[in-house]
């Protein structure tokens, strides 16, 4: 019997006394997801970008030219300038929905990777943090490339417009965290369709992504203000058009941050309930 055949004597292994902190544990979960996506991220990123890029082109050369002959948009900008930052924020939201639903339910129900992680020193909050970090990195990649595209179309009118990129990532976080908190409690995928159909799709309508929200009937305005997407769109748009005001921008950031942080805190609880039971 060779010495390679059996593991080293067990039980005498010295274990480091120092316990790793939350940042380190969360980072380990993040690294898991990096390894997980290592072979698939290129094709995934390509398809995540293609949609919005095609859309932008169609808007710029097609619909945009039609619209621009009609009534002026607020500030008298081109339709493309108006819609591009809206699509930036909406893309962030869409990716957050994609990343917060099937990958989370799959991790807890079908793939087993959450349960595998939890049998190690990983804790539910580390799983939340690491998985969310990877998802947000992904969103940042997708919106970053989209932002480069829209800059190429001349839609970014001010230097401060660069901040629309992190603003879009914040928009993604405002959706991702509550979605993760909710989806980890589910037993099957049926409710996910409801989430897409009755939450995500209406958000597009009420958020002023494609047309000025002031054109909505008056009763719908409070709904618009309540949706994080409206705040994300307004923030991104005012930044790229160079019309952002400090006070308004801070309100938008605070609102989005509240959803992201609140969702994160909720996710720590729901993940714990689901994974420790």
């Amino acid at each position, binding site marked *: 019997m060779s010495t390679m055949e*059996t*593991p080293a004597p*067990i*039980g005498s292994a010295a274990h480091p006394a120092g316990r790793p902190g939350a940042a380190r544990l969360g980072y380990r979960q993040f690294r898991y997801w990096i390894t997980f996506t290592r072979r698939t991220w290129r094709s995934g990123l390509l398809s995540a970008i293609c949609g919005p890029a095609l859309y932008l082109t169609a808007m710029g050369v097609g619909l945009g030219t039609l619209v621009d002959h009609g009534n002026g948009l607020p500030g008298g900008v081109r339709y493309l300038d108006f819609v591009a930052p809206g699509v930036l924020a909406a893309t962030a939201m869409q990716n957050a929905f994609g990343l917060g639903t099937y990958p989370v339910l799959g991790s807890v129900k079908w793939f087993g990777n959450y*349960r*595998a992680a939890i049998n190690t020193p990983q804790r539910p909050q580390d799983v939340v943090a690491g998985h969310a970090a990877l998802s947000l990195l992904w969103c940042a990649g997708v919106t970053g490339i989209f932002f480069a595209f829209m800059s190429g179309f001349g839609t970014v009118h001010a230097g401060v417009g660069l901040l629309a990129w992190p603003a879009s990532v914040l928009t993604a976080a405002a959706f991702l965290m509550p979605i993760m908190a909710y989806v980890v409690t589910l037993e099957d995928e049926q409710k996910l369709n409801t989430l897409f159909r009755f939450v995500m799709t209406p958000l597009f309508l009420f958020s002023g992504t494609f047309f000025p929200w002031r054109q909505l009937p008056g009763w719908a305005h409070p709904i618009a203000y309540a949706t994080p997407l409206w705040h994300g769109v307004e923030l991104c748009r005012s930044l790229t058009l160079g019309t952002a005001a400090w006070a308004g921008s801070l309100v938008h950031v605070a609102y989005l941050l509240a959803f992201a942080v609140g969702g994160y805190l909720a996710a720590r609880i729901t993940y714990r309930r689901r994974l420790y039971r």
Partner: protein
Amino acid sequence: MRVSGRNQPSTAPASARGEILIEARGLSKHFAKKGAEPFTAVAGIDFEVRRGEVFGFLGPNGAGKSTTMRMIGCVSPSTGGSLRVFGMDPAADGPAIRARLGVVPQEDTLDTEMQVRDNLHVYGRYFGLPRAVIRERTERLLEFVQLADRARDKVEPLSGGMKRRLTIARSLINEPEILILDEPTTGLDPQARHVVWDRLYRLKQRGTTLILTTHYMDEAEQLCDRLVVMDKGRIAAEGAPHELIARYCTREVLELRFPLDEQDQSAQKAAGIAQKVEVLPDRVLMYADDGDGALQAVRARGLEPLTALVRRSTLEDVFLTLTGRTLVD
């Protein structure tokens, strides 16, 4: 005809005096149920596991074995009693305890889209092991579970037995002091089971503390130094396999088959011959220290069974004696 059983182990496990690693007192687990009484999966059990021993939980489906394993593994908070693992409280020190455990859950949780070796890599990273250490151990562990030639293959196409062995290899990446195996061979074909048993036997010989659950009495008899028989959330008996057999059964069992409609009368006719008689749906079990003698006595009463088999008593018989039911339904 005589089917000879395994030789009974003649020595008590050397680990009997080992330090206590796990101690449970009145340990219980209730699951809240919507609009109903909470369901009791584990109903106040006591046990202790010492360093170096192989400790088993033998019981049918639903006995509460997995729930108990999950509590020991610090991924399921207990709802009553006390539990200490390495002297620590799972509620307070779960991650620190888990750092010293290896877990093979009932359902595999491998990353089937990843390569075999990447599965060990990502798992090792969770324990904060440096890359070089993981690489060295991966090589050694894949060798150990006879998967070295599959290191760069995806997990997905591996057979059930291979996946199980990979899960075992993965669970050893942190060189755990206790390895928890929840039904390590359920669902495997006989040959694959033997390969797993052989690996576990080697771990046992190296002095690894093993905890395993099973509903196979042969698995429990082969591997366990000591075991508890678990049923409906309670522990029905505890001891070494041969002790349990000696305590609850006769040395031998005479298994008789009669035409099904004559079974009950035949059993009544044979009353008194054996110390105890169990009538199962398809056969009659007669517990007697001398099975051949009992068979002669049965025949002397004019009974002609279709088949007759004398065998040693097993843990299956112990379970039947304790609960009146069979282990595998």
